[in-house]
């Protein structure tokens, strides 16, 4: 081959390579991109739609002239028949149920998480984790009847029939606690698991026992992650509907006694919307005001938990 011939070949391949750099139309790729965008858009639009409906109907409620915003957020009596729309009658029982649920789920969930992450053998883990997942997968209606037909009789056998009413917030709260327990334990376990092994080594190297290491080093290092788990669980408990609808009571009542029946916000919404409501009645609008309130509460909690989780991530990255 002569010199000039080989130079020409190089020039030719270079030209071919240049044309190869042109943008290509990748149809499959563009299609998938569009599809993913569509999915994202749908979820955002749905959320916007919910906010819009909640907002619109709530606005009708507050502009109806029957109730002021102040009466709504400060009143403790909820009696639509006589025009009383005090949210505290429902909010109080929601908060009580949630508090009881957390009293059950937080200590137990944390204990399970610490056990799973620091103590459990591979074998124990491989048994306990699926059990927890099953617990999380039980339909809430089953939990509801579990509260009504097991937890309430159980409480009655301890405290007496005259003290514990058939419908009560205690039984519902305890069972919601069991419902969110897998959530608390699995999120907390993730947080504990994310704590670098080097910190455990440091603690052991100083002569710490297993318990000292778990409680005084690993748990504090995972504080933010565990806190996020708690917040998500609270938000889940506030929104839980079926269990309270079945077991907590079917009538608003402003009481601090967990053994008395009291309807929660979610429970009230299901009961009212289950009946035959006319669409432009004040009752109908009122459930959207309650819904908006629930939405704001859980949204706030979720925003807080996002910040908490972010903080936790920053600490180790």
């Amino acid at each position, binding site marked *: 081959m002569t010199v000039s011939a080989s130079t020409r070949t190089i020039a030719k391949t270079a030209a071919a390579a240049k044309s190869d750099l042109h943008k290509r139309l990748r149809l499959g790729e563009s299609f998938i991109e569009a599809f993913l965008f569509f999915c994202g858009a749908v979820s955002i639009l749905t959320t916007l739609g919910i906010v819009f409906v909640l907002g619109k109907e709530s606005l009708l409620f507050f502009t109806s002239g029957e109730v002021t915003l102040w009466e709504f957020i400060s009143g403790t009596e909820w009696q639509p028949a006589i025009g009383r729309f005090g949210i505290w009658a429902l909010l109080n029982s929601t908060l009580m149920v949630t508090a009881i649920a957390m009293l059950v789920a937080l200590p137990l969930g944390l204990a399970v998480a610490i056990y799973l992450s620091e103590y459990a053998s591979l074998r124990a883990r491989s048994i306990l984790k699926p059990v927890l997942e099953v617990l999380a997968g039980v339909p809430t209606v089953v939990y509801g009847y579990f509260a009504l037909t097991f937890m309430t009789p159980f409480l009655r056998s301890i405290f007496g029939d005259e003290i514990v009413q058939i419908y009560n917030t205690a039984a519902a709260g305890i069972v919601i606690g069991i419902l969110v327990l897998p959530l608390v334990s699995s999120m907390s376990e993730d947080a504990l698991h994310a704590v670098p092994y*080097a*910190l455990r*080594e440091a603690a052991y*190297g*100083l*002569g710490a026992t297993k318990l000292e290491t778990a409680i*005084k080093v690993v748990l*504090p290092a995972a504080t933010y992650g565990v806190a996020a788990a708690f917040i998500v669980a609270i938000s889940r408990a506030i929104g839980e509907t079926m269990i309270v609808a079945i077991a907590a009571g079917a009538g608003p009542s402003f009481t601090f006694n967990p053994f008395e029946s009291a309807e929660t916000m979610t429970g009230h919404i299901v009961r009212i919307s289950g009946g035959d409501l006319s669409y432009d009645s004040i009752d109908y609008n009122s459930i959207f005001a309650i819904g908006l309130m629930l939405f704001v509460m859980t949204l706030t909690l979720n925003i807080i938990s996002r910040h908490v989780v972010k903080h936790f991530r920053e600490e180790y990255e």
Partner: protein
Amino acid sequence: MNYTNGKYVFDIQNLNCYYGSFRAVKDTDLSIESKKITAFIGPSGCGKSTVLRTFNRMNDLIPSARVTGEVLFHGQNLYDPDVDPVEVRRRIGMVFQKPNPFPKSIYENVAWGARINGFKGNMDELVEQSLRQAALWDEVKDKLDQSGLGLSGGQQQRLCIARTIAPRPEVILMDEPCSALDPIATLKIEDLMRQLVKNYTIIIVTHNMQQAARVSDYTAYFLMDRDDRAGLLIEYGVTNEIFTKPKDQRTEDYITGRFG
């Protein structure tokens, strides 16, 4: 070897270390002199860390790890069935490869180990003393309540040293304590070690031969056996002699950089 006059702290006899069925260290005998710095050198994977971690039973944390032979600490075998590893680690402290301060305040980092060891005296004093011994006091005395994670890498490692000496151990084990640090921070730690050795027995693993030559009194050279990939002790002696007139050809190859 004479243990009664306190000259030797550790005496390893016929040590074999296993991970599962893999023998990582074989047939090692080694004595560690009190209030001296002993360096373990050798190529990576030859079992230096494994041997080091038998001195405070850190290997116990790895489920597959197993040890045969004896690790005598003042004549008592640390692997006797009735020896509590937690108690062992209270007397034999450890500094790790990567600085690993707790995500707690500088003060808490130092106080933590002493506190769980039941220290009842003046904690402020102990913290100050430990930080001074770790040559860190002047840099942190105004920010004791700030997080230990906010310090530079070299400072973090000195904080870890302060944390290790706060419970007043007898021995300090260091596993490549400078490998994550820049040269200036490394020199600081080396100076610090020369100070600490007046009161503590120090055993350091290092892949850095210059470091071993600079700081240690004794050097142990480990190498992996070609046939079964088990680490073994090739040569052990006064650092100066190991580096100037090694007896074993393999040691000479390693320290002159002809290893490979």
